[in-house]
């Protein structure tokens, strides 16, 4: 009973943050700011759901379920890379931005690395 409440709580927290992330995606005015929405959904949103899933499957069946650790790990490796690639592309396309554009860095990069192939 208590466990069910705790699991529900984590599902609700996860879902709430996924929702807030999506609201941010829809509501924020420019591309770079919108990027912040999905990063939030993938960290705390999925984090909450993953903890709930871990508790549920570790309790109901005899052995512990550890796949959730992998989900978190792979997500944490891939999410920043896609965010960085998307924003890098936006920078090259010179998308409209509410933040003052980083002229010096953009120019430097165009001169030294026109194909944009290098990854940090």
């Amino acid at each position: 009973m208590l466990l069910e409440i705790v699991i529900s709580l984590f599902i609700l927290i996860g879902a709430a943050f996924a929702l807030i992330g999506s609201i941010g995606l829809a509501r924020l005015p420019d591309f770079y700011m919108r990027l912040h929405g999905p990063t939030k959904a993938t960290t705390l949103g999925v984090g909450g759901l993953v903890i709930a899933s871990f508790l549920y499957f570790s309790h109901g069946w005899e052995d512990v379920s550890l796949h959730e650790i992998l989900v978190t790990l792979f997500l944490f490796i891939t999410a920043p890379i896609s965010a960085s690639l998307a924003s890098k592309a936006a920078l090259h396309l010179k998308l409209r931005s509410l933040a003052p554009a980083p002229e010096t860095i953009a120019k430097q990069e165009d001169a030294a690395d026109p194909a944009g192939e290098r990854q940090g």
Partner: protein
Amino acid sequence: MIMTRFLPQPWLSLMLFLLWLLLVNSVAPGHLVLGAILALLLPLFTQRFWPDRPAVQRPLVALRLLGVVLLDIVLANLTVARQVLGPVKRLHPRFVRVPLDLTHEFPITILASIISLTPGTVSVDVTPDRKALLVHGLSVDDEPALVADIKARYEAPLMEVFRC
């Protein structure tokens, strides 16, 4: 000598071994052997893709950094949730240049990933000379404070972990 020849990256091997056991979710003897074989072979086959990768020197510091990052993710999420739901006009998005003391690609990648994972900041690019990271902040009121925060909380421990 033999150690470096057959186990060029002990940490990667250990991680692959654990990853395999997690993936099959079992510690049956057969999977232990299979995991060990994979952990031995994969680093050998992929070695050419890892040009001079720095080794983790202080695993305990790395663990503490992981704890700090997880805590920061939770705390920063709450802040950003408030910012997202609040009035958009009150946000001050900025591009911030974070000068780097780290010199090696691999730790820089980790630092950039940490910055992207903690909500409120997304690392956009690294300058070609690898002297600075370009970070986009959702609402930056105090630029020097943000830079100092990133350097003290994440970069300093990373430098300690990799000793570079």
